């Protein structure tokens, strides 16, 4: 993986990759700070999101008043954001590589059920070291299930060359089928204290779930921006064939993409089951399309190759502000859904129009 093209290339320059490898080789190797700063804005996506957030805060602040910024309101936002956030990260990695993972929710639910089954069967009645070990083992089992699903997805997509949308549509149905079949649609609930704490506890006032989200988002951002694997993911998303011809083993990279996506779904599973103190085959299904919505809103190109974790985080914050404000205003959650859809079209539409105006 230590290919000269990928080892030292910051992700910002990957943006120019879609014209092919020749263009990359013509790139100067060092990037100045001004470009870096401009790079944070991406193609202006982050800047636009920040402006949108500011406008929303001002507007909602005027209508709702201080209540929007009260500690309770901020706390509830911080508790709600991580679930959708981590699932969106899982979706985002695959979108960057030019793929998609429709099985994120199904994976998260099967992981949660696996962990829940172990926790509820063995934890009650155990003490001391065994009590701790069983909980660790339960989490490990969840991640093992996720890894298996991720490898199946990756294998079918990278080696059998099935289009990602079809492959993950299949695994989504299959994995949910396993969850429904084994539990007969029932809920598994009642977890030990430490697990519940992950979903509902706080450290120094910061919800643990938010810390978990940060612990997933930061390494992901570093991996995408600073490692050969990250660079390879962006390159594959821009032009898979050119990337293969440049000597990168694209199949292995794609396999890793779906493995990472699945493992992130397992992290989301922990947060979800901890928050509800239960697991079920069909929790959070309405999140599936919303994760794509959040990612695209955050400037991730659904065709692959472009987008940043920072953009996704900003988009999540924006969606959460709208949702919380509407909640405070006593509007229906379904109106929030409609507004999210409208904003997606507005943001994606203006991005396209600007690009067309600039590109001629």
């Amino acid at each position, binding site marked *: 993986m230590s290919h000269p093209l990928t080892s030292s290339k910051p992700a910002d320059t990957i943006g120019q990759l879609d014209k092919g490898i020749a263009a990359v080789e013509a790139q100067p190797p060092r990037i100045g700070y001004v470009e870096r700063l401009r790079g944070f804005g991406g193609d202006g996506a982050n800047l636009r999101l920040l402006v949108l957030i500011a406008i929303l805060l001002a507007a909602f602040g005027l209508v709702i008043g201080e209540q929007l910024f009260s500690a309770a309101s901020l706390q509830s936002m911080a508790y709600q954001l991580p679930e959708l956030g981590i699932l969106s990260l899982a979706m985002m990695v695959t979108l960057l590589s030019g793929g998609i993972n*429709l099985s994120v929710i199904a994976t998260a639910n099967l992981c949660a059920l696996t962990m829940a089954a172990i926790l509820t069967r063995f934890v009650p009645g155990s003490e001391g070291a065994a009590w701790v070990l069983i909980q660790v083992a339960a989490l490990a089992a969840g991640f093992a299930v996720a890894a298996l699903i991720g490898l199946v997805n990756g294998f*079918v997509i990278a080696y*059998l*060359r*099935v*289009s990602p*949308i*079809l*492959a993950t*549509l*299949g*695994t*989504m*149905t*299959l*994995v*949910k*089928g*396993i969850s*429904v*079949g084994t539990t*007969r*649609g029932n809920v598994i609930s009642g977890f030990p204290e430490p697990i519940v704490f992950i979903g509902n506890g706080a450290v120094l006032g910061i919800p643990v779930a938010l810390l978990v989200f940060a612990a997933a988002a930061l390494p992901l951002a570093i991996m995408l921006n600073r490692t050969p694997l990250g660079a390879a993911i962006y390159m594959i998303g821009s032009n898979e064939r050119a990337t293969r011809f440049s000597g990168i083993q694209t199949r292995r990279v794609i396999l890793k993409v779906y493995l990472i996506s699945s493992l992130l779904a397992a992290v989301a599973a922990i947060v979800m089951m901890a928050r509800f103190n239960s697991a079920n085959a069909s929790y959070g*299904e*309405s999140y599936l*399309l*919303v994760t*794509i*919505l959040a990612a*695209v809103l955050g400037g991730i190109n*659904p*065709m692959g190759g472009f987008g940043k974790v920072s953009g996704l985080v900003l988009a999540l914050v924006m969606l959460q502000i709208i949702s919380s404000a509407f909640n405070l205003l006593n*509007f*229906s959650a*379904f*109106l*929030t*859904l*409609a*507004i*999210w*859809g*409208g904003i*997606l*079209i507005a943001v*994606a*539409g203006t991005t*396209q*129009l600007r690009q*067309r105006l600039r590109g001629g």
Partner: protein
Amino acid sequence: MIDALRRFSHSHEARLLAVVLTLGAVLTTATPSFLTLQNLFDLLTSYAFLGILAAGLLVVLVAGGIDISFTATASVAQYLALSFAKAYGLGWAETFGLAIGTGIACGLLNAWLIESLRISSIIVTIATLNIFYGLLVFVTGGQYIYALPDWFSKGIWWFEFVDADQIPYGVNLQILLLLLAFTATWVLLNRTTIGRQIYALGGNRDAAGRLGFHVFGLNLFVYGYMGFMAGIASLAQAQLAQSVAPTVLVGRELDVLAAVVLGGASLNGGVGTVLGTVLGLALLAVMQNGLVLVGISSYWSQFFVGLVILVSVSSTSLTLRRRAGSAVA
């Protein structure tokens, strides 16, 4: 004729047909309740909703697009049509006109957004799914409609006949609409100029544009057609359920996609047939029906559906690659 048969025997449809027939033969020997008129009529009736939508989605996929929003479109169409039908005493024609009109309007909006903003169709339709669905439940408060017009609750019952066990059969609304949807789609794709243009558009959009095809107009037609089918399907479903529930249809869009894709339609456009879609749907229907008849808990049916999808798309991909030869590494 022989040439056509030989070509058919190598097609995706032929393999599907073989699988469906084998499955049907196994089920016929395994359980006496499979190959009965009653079971087949029940199957057709209960899969009509998915089937009509699949016919519409097939056209969108052939044109190189995708639509996720049709379940929301159907929910809006059925709610509007049937609440107006009850309130203003509308008849068949007006009610269907209203449902179809609503569907077409939603479809045209999709096409307009996709073409004028040049956003990918999957993103636009995910957004419009949320908009249609969110607004519908917000405005209606998610309330079910149980009070349907009498003539609608009764439905239709044509060509009635009675079998040896005195069980009556007939063509009901669902079966009639399903047949109409597939026939109309077959005629559209195989016997009209617009149909050929849709294949061309899906095969190569730029080339179609340069040939002088009206790409924007074609897309308006294609998404409008999907909306049309969503309108029809919504009434078939409401008649079967004897109620209108704004929240039960959304979430089934991927089931429809699975059926069409099993039928051999490509997400890249330009490929797909009505026969394939019918067989893809038949495979799903016969398999789920068979599992229940054989006595496997229906909790496991989704697992088998997933397995079939995965095996099918993998084997299709492998055959395509083998056919493409060693040119592609």
